[in-house]
């Protein structure tokens, strides 16, 4: 797609703000609407937009499929790993407060942040991987 000048310029302008919005949704999830799932789909949508305008090869240079195949299970591993860490720190599975023994409230925030990061990782990479496999089939 080398000829769609307007689409290329507009999407180049938009994509950084899409990522910024995704990060806002991710890290502001404690205070406003949003969280890992919403941020994950926005990240995936931004990459899909890039892939639509600049081609599958260009987006696969940015995020190689092999990296995604690692990221999909990594997210679940982060989530479950937080729970296992809580076990070893003497709490229940996913009892985030144990992460910071001096200040359980801080541990709680940190735990939720980590867990949401795991959700983001799995959701974004799964959506993108499905897009790659679908888009790669036609050729």
């Amino acid at each position, binding site marked *: 797609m080398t000829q769609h000048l307007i689409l290329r310029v507009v999407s180049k302008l938009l994509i950084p703000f899409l990522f910024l919005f995704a990060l806002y949704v991710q890290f502001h999830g404690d205070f406003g609407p949003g969280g890992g799932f919403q941020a994950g789909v926005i990240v995936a949508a931004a990459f899909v937009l890039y892939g639509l305008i600049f081609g599958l090869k260009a987006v696969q240079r940015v995020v190689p499929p092999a990296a995604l195949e690692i990221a999909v299970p990594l997210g679940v591993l982060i*989530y479950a790993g937080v729970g296992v860490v809580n076990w070893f720190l003497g709490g229940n599975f996913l009892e985030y407060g144990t992460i910071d023994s001096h200040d359980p409230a801080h541990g709680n925030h940190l735990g*939720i942040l980590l867990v949401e990061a795991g959700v983001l990782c799995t959701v974004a990479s799964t959506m993108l991987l499905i897009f790659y496999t679908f888009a790669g089939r036609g050729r």
Partner: protein
Amino acid sequence: MEFLINLVLLLFLSAVTIAIIGVRNLFAVVVLSGTYSFIMATLLIAMDAVDVGMTEAAVGAGVSTVLLLSALHLTKTDEAPAKHSNVLPMALALLTGASLVYGTWDLPRYGAEETPMNDYVGDIYLERSIPDTTVPNVVTSVLASYRGYDTLGETTVIFTAGIGVLMLLRGRRRKDGEGEDQKS
């Protein structure tokens, strides 16, 4: 005012649905289904479910429209004419729709106070979210903290779905490749 907005959105939604049924060109159907998702997202935001609205806009209107388009790339753009009579599928669809509408009669009115969800756990979450978890957004504290196990399960479901799609779509291609190797 809210009633008016909902009425207009729902009218749009039914118009788009009828158009999807009527249109034979599959490209138009994909575009219309994207429109449907956008209207649905607006409707969800009007109902104060911003999280769900965001997800619907990004997944329903964004990513799945792209996936449908890339699926369309592999087939013809026009729907094939039906080989059998449409009466039985139509009767089945009407029956399912009617039973769903019948099911909604038992649901509490939207936003009603005296419902199990608002009487029982909802109040407890609202009261205890900040003392328990210090997270001001109750949706996040319920999802990540009170119902952390469920969200872990959800993430695992997405993981499993991704693996499943990959195995279905990619496994066959590898088999084709092996077949070619054997021939040569």
